C-alpha cells in the first residue's frame, strides 16, 4: 500500500543494531514498481508491496569519462553495511544484494525522515548528538572515507541521528573530500573516543578476517588498511587534526 513504510519493522533489531526484518523485506519483498530517476547514474526508486521504498543502485555502473571508464562499484555498500553491523553503530542503512528488472545491484532502505546534510548546510552538526558524531567519525576514520561531503551523509533531526550512504569506489578507494564528520569531530573537541566505541573497534579488529570480501577488494588492500586504522585508533584512543 502506497504510503506505508519500513517503520513498522524497526522494533525488531538484531544484536548488531541492524534490522533483520527490514533486510528480509528488501531481499524478498514483492516489488510493485521500479522507476529510474532523472540523473547521470541509473539509480532507481523501488516500491515494495506494503513495505515502503528502497533505493536501487546497479552494481555494474560504468560510464565513459573521456578515455577512462568509471566503475562506481556500488556493491561496496554491502561492505559498509557489514562493517557497521560488526561495530554495532547503526549508521549505514540496511542494504542487500538483489536483482531488480534483470540487473544485479544493491537495494537500500529509503529513509524518508532523513535529508542530506547539505540541506541543513552549516547547521547540520547542531542537529545530531555528540555520540552520533563520534561514531560516524570513527567509522569514517576506519574506512578512510575519501568522499564524505555534505551530500554523502544524511541527518534525521528528529532522532538527532546520522546515516552514512554512498559507499562506492569514490568513497572507499578515492581521495576527494576529507570527511566533514571527522573534521567536525576535531573542531568540536570530541576527538577523544569513548571506551565503548573503542570496544566496538576492538571487536571489528577481531572479526574482520571473517568477512567474505571478493578478490578485487582483497587486491585493493582494503581489509589490511582498515585493520591498520583500527590498531591506530586503539593505540591513540583519539582522533586528532594530525591523524585525519
Amino acid at each position, binding site marked *: 500500500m502506497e504510503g506505508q513504510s519500513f517503520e513498522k519493522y524497526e522494533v525488531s533489531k538484531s544484536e548488531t543494531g541492524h534490522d533483520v526484518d527490514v533486510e528480509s523485506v528488501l531481499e524478498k519483498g514483492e516489488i510493485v514498481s521500479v522507476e529510474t530517476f*532523472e*540523473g*547521470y547514474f541509473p539509480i532507481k526508486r523501488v516500491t515494495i508491496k506494503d513495505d515502503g*521504498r528502497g533505493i536501487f543502485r546497479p552494481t555494474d555502473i560504468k560510464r565513459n569519462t573521456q578515455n577512462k571508464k568509471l566503475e562506481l562499484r556500488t556493491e561496496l555498500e554491502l561492505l559498509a553495511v557489514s562493517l557497521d553491523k560488526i561495530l554495532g553503530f547503526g549508521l549505514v542503512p540496511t542494504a542487500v544484494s538483489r536483482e531488480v528488472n534483470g540487473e544485479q545491484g544493491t537495494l537500500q532502505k529509503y529513509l524518508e525522515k532523513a535529508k542530506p546534510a547539505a540541506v541543513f548546510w552549516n547547521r547540520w552538526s547542531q542537529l545530531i548528538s555528540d555520540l552520533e558524531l563520534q561514531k560516524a567519525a570513527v567509522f569514517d576514520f576506519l574506512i578512510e572515507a575519501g568522499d564524505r*561531503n555534505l*551530500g554523502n551523509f544524511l541527518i534525521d533531526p528528529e532522532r538527532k541521528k546520522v546515516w552514512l550512504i554512498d559507499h562506492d569506489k569514490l568513497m572507499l578507494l578515492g581521495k576527494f573530500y576529507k570527511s566533514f564528520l571527522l573534521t567536525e569531530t576535531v573542531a568540536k573537541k570530541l576527538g577523544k573516543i569513548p571506551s565503548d566505541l573503542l570496544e566496538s573497534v576492538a571487536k571489528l579488529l577481531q572479526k574482520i578476517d571473517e568477512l567474505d570480501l571478493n578478490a578485487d577488494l582483497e587486491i585493493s588492500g582494503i581489509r589490511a588498511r582498515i585493520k591498520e586504522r583500527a590498531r591506530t585508533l586503539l593505540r591513540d584512543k583519539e582522533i586528532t587534526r594530525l591523524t585525519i
Partner: protein
Amino acid sequence: MTLFYFVDLYELDKDAKQRKIATFRMNEDEPGRVEIDGDENHPVLGNIKGEGIFDYKNAKPGKLYPYDGMSFLENLKYCFRSGYLLATDVQKKTIDN
C-alpha cells in the same frame, strides 16, 4: 541561435519522488559563467556556491565553483550521485535569439 549547456539537480521528497532543485546553465559564449536557476535560498545551492565541489573527473586537487564553467558542470554528476541528491549529465539546448 545560442547554445546552452546545462545540468539539472534533483532531491527526493518523503515519498522518494524527485523534485528539481535547480538548473545550472552556461551560455556557450560565456564559458566562465554558470547561472543557477532555482530557489536561491535552497541550502544545497548555498553549499555548492560556498564550498565548491571536487574535480572528480580529473582527480585534481582543489575545488571547482560555478565560475569554472564546463569543468564545474561536468563534475556535478559525480558529486551528487546518491539518489537523495542526483545530478544529470551535461546536456545541450539551442535557443533561437
